[in-house]
Structures are given as structure tokens and as C-alpha cells.
């Protein structure tokens, strides 16, 4: 019986920074807050990270429930299988996004029981008031997951707002189309406000929204400045830790707590650099996590890399901000319009750079930029079988990087984000060992 399966929980991963070590309790507290909010009758919104909604949700005092995060927690706790199997039993294919499957398995079970499934990781996920999807060229589950969840919670309304960004094309410049993109995004964000006012009995306080947007702008800058410090040799913080610090970046955007977290991280990294304190004492290889979501149940693989003398000063994954002062945003009084411009300019940030290198694209330019800025020796990517958002195109990006820039050692790991049955620790580590040998051979040439 799936209900009786016991998770085999992994030991806590050793972090390089104190900041990353605080994340577990922060996530646990956030989940406890959701359950408390439910008891107090506050509106709870199922939400996706990086949907551009954070500031609106915060300004309206709606409690976000980050459903991808809860699936990730189930993965970290190695307790996702029973929810995945439950979803499969509902006729959802196991090839679909395992965040979504884990969430759908959990939700369908909770709805059937009328209470939390037995022994839910960290207390479980509360029933939402609304579900906020988004339509964007990031991932299909962002509009399909909550629509599917509605099959088990037909009374819970779903909003799906469009949040596109101009594609990179050779025959026109994004500046020719950006105005209609911004106009559309503003309308969709305004639609979200109306939707939330209708379904949650909350009114938007526009002054408050402006304040929240200001906090999130400052957080974008603070994250960028803190992460830039990782260029130091030895590197004070790696991607393993960044997979923790993505929590305040994505789940606390627009809050003072999130901003303060990154101020503390900045100070901590400064101290470490002053003391020449790296992730490991003898840093031999500097690697770029070039794409792909991590296997949440196997974050200790980053420590394994460390044990071989390799560190990850930079990653593409969850580097979801640029310094706002570099985005050349027009001055606008409407905070929604500001959010729209910030979104469009973030996604078009490397278009001009790509245009200067034939065959390159903004994604490839980003790899090149990080390779140069962070003194990178090799690129590692992860192909998660269930996720067609960040993963299709990675192999091509790696090939194109080598074609338009230079050859560089690379490794593509294969597993999943949540489904541990796709993972083989011995094989993964054997591949890492072989990659380290390659790095060594290249270094000693």
C-alpha cells in the first residue's frame, strides 16, 4: 500500500554559508504559517515562483503557498513517491512534471480524506482559496497543473495571466515589439488584482504595492551584488548553497525579510572573502551549473564535487534577477507597469550582446558571460526527465557554446527533480569522477 511506505530521509547537507543553513527552518516556518493562516481564515493562493505576481500577492496580504516548493520538500525528505504513485493512479502520466504530479497526488488525497494525508512532510499543504497559474514561455504546467487540480477542488477558482517576453529574432529588435508586450502584461496583472479582489475579499492598496515593488527592486539589486561576490577566488559560496538561497529569492520577493536575508548574505560573503575563506580549502576547479533544476533529493552531490576539489561559483538556474539599475527601465508611476517593464527588460537583457556574436543567443551569451566573469573551467548541466521548461535546449546550448565560443569540458547529468526512482547515486558519482579526470587532464595540458 502506498500509504504505508516509509520515506528514507537523507542526512542534512553541509552548507558553506550560514545563510544557506538558515533556509530549512525558514521553509518550515513558512509552511507552518500557511497552516496557521488557514486556521485563521486568511486567503491562501497556490502560486508558482517567478510568475511576476509576488508583489501583488504581498501587497494584498494574501498568503502564498508555493506548490513547487512543497513538492521539492517532499523530494528532499525522500517522501514524494507515495504522492507520485497516487497521481499515476489518477491517470496522470509519470512523464509529466513531477512537481505537479506530487502536488496533484497530495491534493487529490487530501480532498478524498477531507484532511491531510497521513504523516505529511512538514505538516502538509493547506487547501487554497485561489490558484494562480501563468501563461508564459516557461512551462506548460504553469497553466495545466492548477486546471488539473481543479478536478479535485472544483470550487477553487484559477487565474492564468499571460506573462510573455519578446523572443530573440534576427529580423527584428525587441524594442520594436516591447510596447505591446508591456501593455498586455499590465492588463493581465490588473486582471489578477481584480480576480483576487473578487475571490479573497481583499482590496489592493496601491500605495502599499508601490512600497512592495520598491523592496523587490532593492532585493534584485542586493541579490545581484551578493552573487557577484562569488567571483572571488577562492569562492565563498557555491551552487549547492544557491539552491537553498533560492528560497528567499523566489518565495519571499517583496518582503523585508527577503531583502534582509540577502543583506546578511552579502555581509557574510564579504567577511569570508576578507578572510580568504572558500567553500573548500584547496579549490582546484571552478564549475558553472549551466542549466537544469537540481535533483532535490541529491543535493549532496554538490558536496561530492567539493570533495574532489570542484566548486560552483555560478549557476544559471534560479539566477532570476539582474541589477535593476542596469535594465534601463523607463520611469513610470504605475507599479504594475514598472513590473511589466522589469519583466520584459530582464528577459531581453542579453539580446544586444547576442546580436554581436553570429550564431549566439541570449542563453548562450549568459553562459559565456558567467564563464568569463567567474573564471570557469567546466560546465555541468542536469537534464530532469519530467521537466520540459528549463531542460529542452540545454544540449544544444552546450553545443552552440562550443561552436561560437570555445571548447570547454562539460557534463550533463540525468535524473529528475522529485522522482528518486530516476536516480542512481553510484552511476552519478562515477560520471562526476570521470568529469573531474577530464578537468584535470585539461588543466595539466
Amino acid at each position, binding site marked *: 500500500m502506498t500509504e504505508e511506505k516509509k520515506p528514507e530521509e537523507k542526512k542534512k547537507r553541509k552548507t558553506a554559508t550560514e545563510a544557506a543553513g538558515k533556509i530549512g527552518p525558514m521553509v518550515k516556518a513558512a509552511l507552518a504559517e500557511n497552516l496557521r493562516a488557514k486556521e485563521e481564515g486568511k486567503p491562501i493562493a497556490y502560486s508558482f515562483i517567478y510568475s511576476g505576481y509576488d508583489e501583488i500577492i504581498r501587497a494584498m496580504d494574501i498568503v502564498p503557498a508555493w506548490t513547487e516548493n512543497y513538492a521539492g520538500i517532499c523530494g528532499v525528505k525522500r517522501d514524494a513517491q507515495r504522492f507520485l504513485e497516487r497521481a499515476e493512479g489518477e491517470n496522470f*502520466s509519470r512523464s509529466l512534471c513531477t512537481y505537479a504530479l506530487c502536488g496533484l497526488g497530495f491534493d487529490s488525497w487530501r480532498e478524498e480524506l477531507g484532511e491531510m494525508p497521513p504523516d505529511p512532510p512538514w505538516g502538509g499543504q493547506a487547501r487554497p482559496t485561489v490558484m494562480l497559474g501563468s501563461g508564459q514561455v516557461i512551462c506548460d504546467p504553469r497553466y495545466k497543473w492548477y486546471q488539473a487540480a*481543479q478536478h479535485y477542488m472544483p*470550487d477553487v477558482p484559477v487565474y*492564468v495571466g*499571460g506573462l510573455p517576453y519578446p523572443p530573440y529574432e534576427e529580423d527584428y529588435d525587441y524594442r520594436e515589439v516591447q510596447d505591446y508586450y508591456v501593455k498586455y502584461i499590465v492588463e493581465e496583472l490588473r486582471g489578477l488584482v481584480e480576480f483576487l479582489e473578487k475571490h479573497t475579499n481583499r482590496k489592493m492598496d496601491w500605495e502599499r504595492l508601490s512600497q512592495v515593488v520598491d523592496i523587490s527592486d532593492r532585493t534584485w539589486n542586493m541579490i545581484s551584488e551578493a552573487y557577484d561576490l562569488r567571483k572571488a577566488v577562492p569562492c565563498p559560496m557555491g551552487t549547492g548553497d544557491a539552491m537553498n538561497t533560492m528560497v528567499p529569492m523566489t518565495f519571499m520577493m517583496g518582503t523585508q525579510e527577503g531583502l534582509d536575508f540577502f543583506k546578511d548574505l552579502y555581509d557574510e560573503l564579504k567577511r569570508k572573502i576578507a578572510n580568504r575563506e572558500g567553500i573548500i580549502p584547496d579549490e582546484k576547479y571552478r564549475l558553472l551549473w549551466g542549466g537544469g533544476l537540481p535533483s532535490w533529493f541529491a543535493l549532496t552531490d554538490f558536496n561530492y564535487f567539493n570533495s574532489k576539489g570542484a566548486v560552483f561559483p555560478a549557476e544559471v538556474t534560479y539566477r532570476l534577477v539582474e541589477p535593476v539599475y542596469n535594465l534601463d527601465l523607463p520611469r513610470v508611476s504605475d507599479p504594475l507597469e514598472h513590473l511589466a517593464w522589469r519583466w520584459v527588460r530582464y528577459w531581453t537583457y542579453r539580446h544586444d550582446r547576442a546580436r554581436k556574436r553570429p550564431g549566439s543567443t541570449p542563453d548562450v551569451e549568459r553562459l559565456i558571460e558567467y564563464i568569463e566573469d567567474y573564471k570557469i573551467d567546466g560546465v555541468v548541466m542536469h537534464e530532469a526527465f519530467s521537466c520540459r521548461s528549463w531542460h529542452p535546449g540545454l*544540449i544544444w546550448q552546450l553545443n552552440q557554446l562550443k561552436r561560437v565560443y570555445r571548447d570547454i569540458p562539460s557534463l550533463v547529468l540525468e535524473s529528475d527533480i522529485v522522482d528518486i526512482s530516476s536516480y542512481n547515486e553510484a552511476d552519478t558519482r562515477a560520471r562526476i569522477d570521470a568529469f573531474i579526470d577530464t578537468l584535470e587532464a585539461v588543466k595539466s595540458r
Partner: protein
Amino acid sequence: MPEEVAGGLAAADKYYRDYGSRARELKKGGAKIIGYLCAFTPVEIITAAGLVPFRIKGDVNEPITKADTEMETIVCPLVRSCFDVSLKGKYEFLDGIVIPHACDSISRTYDVWKYTLNLPYSHFIDMPHGTGEPSLDFYKSLLGTFRTSLGKFTGREISDQDLKEAVGLYNQNRAKVRELYQLRKASPPLISGAEVTKLLVAAVSLPVAEATRLIDSVIKEVKQRQAAPAKTARIMVVGAEVDDIAFLDLIEDSGAWVVADDLCPGAREFFADVAVTANPVDGIAERYLRKIKCGRTFREKEGSYDDYLEERFGHIGRFIKEFKVDGVVLYIYKYCDPYGFDVPAMKSYIESAGAPVLYLEDEYSMSTIGRLRTRIQAFLELIAK
């Protein structure tokens, strides 16, 4: 246009088997051919530009080998197969490619297609998922950008008159397909499911006027037929894109007729017309964003949940009644997010409409299709009881 294009089922068979042969001929004659993926590519605009739209098709008989060097195996197997045969030179006549924001497998691989095939023209249409007024306005702007981009490529602006003429041609074409489907209502049907798919696949490889003549010739031919043998059940197939007859043959060889579908190419792609509007882009946008009922388009829930299911899947319910369907096969590819997430809701809707459902997941290859035979036979036995 060669005479044989109007040559009924034999011509359809030829163009299906030697897929792309007509485009190759046209290319030799100086035409420019634009490959595209998915029913969400607004072919009217390509035709209005004086170009020939050509639907890129995969091949279930061809093992995917070359594609894996540039495209992840977690991508939809149909898209991988399309890319694989393209890399192997099957569509060497293409002058460009257009990819719409249909699903992750298609849209997230745009760069892979664009830079690997390295064709003179490429364009991505960032179609929204929503269907509200802001989404419609945004989509019209996107179509305006596409129109301008194609005009730059050909060196000739696309006029409203060009668009209106193209809309007229496609509406005629779709009317012919609807007429064809009427022949499936007879018991037994005058045309098999495999023949319909073969014809429609052939049709999307041809210029629209030629495709219309081909379909018309098939209608005339089929109307002259003697009644087909009776079979145990009338089946409807629902899924994303089925561009090969192998699966339909499997059902029909197992003793049933496939009499209806919600597929591309098929009813989903061909049933909705473009409304004739003062600005032709308005009618085109409305059709693609609102009229094509596909899992990739998000429709807001209004009213009860049952009403919502009716809004999303009501056309399937109507087909079940109109075509006297005994059972429905949900034929979904592995890694298909728009349809994979719909399975529980769709299955429940269809069952409540009174039709039994068989849900099959497949991988777009002859080896996996063959393994489905036993399950289909068991389903047909269940229906027969």
C-alpha cells in the same frame, strides 16, 4: 498543379507515402516552402505572402538517432521524430520554419530548430494561452509582427486583399473536410479512419487549393463505394497530433471503425473557419486563439465545474452523439503536457457522456504502437458485451 492531385485516394496515398514530394516539385519550379509545426501556425498568412506552408511530419518507422545529438530525449517523441527526419534531409527543400507557442516541446526547442536547420527564414509566434480580450489583442499584435516579418523575407508587403483571399481558400478547404466527415456518419462509414488521416496528412503537405481539390476528389470517389463491411464498434480517437495511420490501422484491423476524432490533422484542426472580418487579421486571431479546442489553450471557468468541462470538452460529447460513437480512445504521447494533464478530467467527462474510455500512452514508434494491440482488442471486447 498536376492532374493526379485531384486523383482521389490513390493520389492521397501517393502524397502520404512520398511525403513532401509535391513541395519538392514546387521548389524546383521556384516556389518558396515554409515548414511549420502544429495546427496553431496561421497558415493563411504564409499563403497570403505567396509562400507554400508545409506541415513537418515525423516518421514512426524511422528510429530517432540524429536528433539526440541536439535535442533532449525528454521532448515529445513526435517533435523529436519531426526534428530527426528534418536533420536527415527529408525536407531539404525548406526555405524557412515557423514555430508557434503551442507546447513546451515545440516552443522550448525553437532555437534548436532555428540554428540547427539554419534556414533562410525562421519565426516564433509567441501565442498566449489565455483567451480573454487582452490576450486576443496581444495575439493580433503578434500576427502583425509575423506579417511584417514575412513581408521582409519575400520583399513584398502582405496586403489585406492577399489575406482575404487566403482566408477564403482555407475556409473552402475546411468546408470540404467537414463534408468529408459527413461520410463517416453512415453505418458502416463510407471511409475508414486511416483513410481520413492519410488524406488529411497528405493535404497539409500541399498548397491549400490543391489540397481542397484532392479532398473533393476523395469525397466523389468514396460516395461511389459499395457499403463497407460491418464491424463491432464505432470508435473515436482523441489526442494531440497523429500524423501516421499505424495506430488507426491497428484499431480498424482489430474489428472496429474509427468514425470520429479530435486530432490534428483532423476535426480539431479543420472544423473551425476564419470569420470574414473587415480586418482579416481579426478573424484569423479569433480562430486560432478561441475556436480551436486544444489542451494548450486555457479557458477560464465560468459557472459550475460541469459547465467548465462542457466548455472544454463539449465538442467531444457532440461528436460522440453525432457520429454514434461506441467508445473513445485517448491516445496521448509520453511527455505531452497539454494533453497529459487533461486525462482525468477528459476521461470523466466522456464517461459521463455515456462512452467507455481507453486511455493509452504511446511513444510515437512502430515498436510501441504494436504493443497496444492487446489492450485495444480487450477494449473492443468490453464494448461488444
